[in-house]
């Protein structure tokens, strides 16, 4: 049942995201290496979240949102031709700033939601996939006795790991994390960070974060965004020790942002 983790390539080419006529992300080209974590950092309003939302075509759902340029997933431009964004989003998992468990569903149903909408699998297969996802999200031991209970009874940190489980249950190719620890306490944050490092063995992960220490802890590569532009992209260790661009250094040392 469990597919071996395959290498999936993701790349943006001169990607520009706009609201109406205002560009908030400007001509950004990044190639994400398979099974790595890439962190997007930068001050509020720099376009890093918008950039992330272009990768699974969520940006176009915002009022006035549209893009130019390319997002190439496994050799295919996701904005080209008749690719259905709904189908695309099943190939790319996403976790948001605040935990968003579906309140009317049980823990089990929450994790199974993405599988069911795909419409395949017997009950036994679904149950297996749910357990797998919960185990990978390091939540199984805490919830295995109460899978039928409401998801809203979980703590904030548990809810966020539930959302991770929900996102990875359909075996996506890429995992997008949009400030996943912004609403969590230090304990919850640590679990998510550990999870991030754990999950990169299977997925290509892109994480947006406000927390520079977090970027340093979990990511292999870091992209520094400022005013919608990509200022610097590099190996995290190098960038945090000796950034090439002056602006990056100023941000990393807290002189602005």
């Amino acid at each position, binding site marked *: 049942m469990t597919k071996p983790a395959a290498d999936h390539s993701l790349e943006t080419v001169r990607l520009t995201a706009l609201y109406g006529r205002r560009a908030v992300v400007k001509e950004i080209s990044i190639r994400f290496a398979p099974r790595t974590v890439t962190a997007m950092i930068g001050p509020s309003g720099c376009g890093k979240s918008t950039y992330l939302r272009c990768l699974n075509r969520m940006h176009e759902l915002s009022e006035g949102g549209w893009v130019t340029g390319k997002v190439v997933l496994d050799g295919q431009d996701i904005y080209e031709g008749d690719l259905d964004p709904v189908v695309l989003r099943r190939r790319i998992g996403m976790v948001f700033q605040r935990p968003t468990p579906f309140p009317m569903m049980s823990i089990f149903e929450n994790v199974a939601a*993405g599988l069911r909408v795909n419409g395949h699998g017997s009950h036994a297969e679904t149950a297996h996939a749910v357990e797998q996802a919960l185990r990978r999200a390091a939540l199984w031991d805490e919830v295995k006795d109460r899978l039928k209970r409401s998801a809203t009874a979980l703590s904030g940190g548990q809810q966020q790991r539930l959302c991770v489980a929900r*996102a990875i249950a359909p075996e996506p190719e890429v995992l997008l994390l949009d400030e996943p620890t912004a609403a969590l306490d230090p304990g919850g944050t640590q679990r998510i960070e550990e999870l991030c490092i754990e999950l990169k063995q299977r997925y290509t992960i892109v994480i947006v974060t406000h927390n520079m220490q977090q970027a340093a802890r979990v990511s292999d590569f870091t992209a520094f965004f400022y005013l919608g532009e990509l200022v610097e992209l590099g190996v995290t260790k190098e960038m945090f020790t000796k950034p090439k661009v002056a602006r990056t250094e100023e941000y990393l040392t807290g002189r602005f942002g």
Partner: protein
Amino acid sequence: MNLRQIRRHFVSGLMTGVVALLSALACLALFLILANLVIKGASSLDLNFFIKDPVPAGQTGGGVANAIVGTLIIVGLAALVGLPVGIGAGLYLAEYGNGRLGWVVRFVADVLNGTPSIVIGVFAWTWLVKPMGHFSALAGGVALAVLMVPMIARTTEEMVRLVPHSLREAALALGYPRWRTSLSIVARTALAGIVTGCLVGIARIAGETAPLLFTALGNLNFSTSVLEPMQTLSLQIFSYATGPFEEWHRLAWAAALVLMGLVLVLGAAARIAMRQRQ
């Protein structure tokens, strides 16, 4: 305490008192109605009242079984037609209704909401009773449904709008199509609120009389056929209360008490459904 503080305390106390008094006044109306109904109607509530049909004028011992069953049938019919339309329209308004069409639907619903119920009765008479050639429970049910739809639509819209946007995004990011997001995530999350709105809507139409006067008409006999005239509690109250006999007045009070009880039960159910939400 200096003078200003004393003044502040005084004004605060005064305002609280005024507001409390006004609230009491608002509740007083309901208590007076209920007390009145119980005093004048409760003594007529026996088994016969519920299981017997009306007897000819002058005789005693009749009941309003036909009206009780008729009310249930016509209100049920109205709910059958009105709830799906109202909930659907409300869902549309909340989820897709930001454009021009949404504005139009919302405007129409608000106007319809303020339309006198007797006008809706005339409308049902023109479009259903006249073409069919006779009065019917069906026409009455449709008239009540028309009355109900805008109420249900607007409350459903409000309840659905309360669902956080982040849940919609989470579902969409998971690969839910838009319609499925609306139905199985958003509507499901707002369910308790929608149910509450429906119960309040049903309670609101259960006692309507004007739209039924020239649609369901009323019926002295027991009837369950929706294509024939049918009696309801409200029509029964109207004809008995305006009649000349003491016995009829007695039964009218009792029927009013039963109708009021029905509305109270629906209102209480709505409260409970709402509490389930939290």
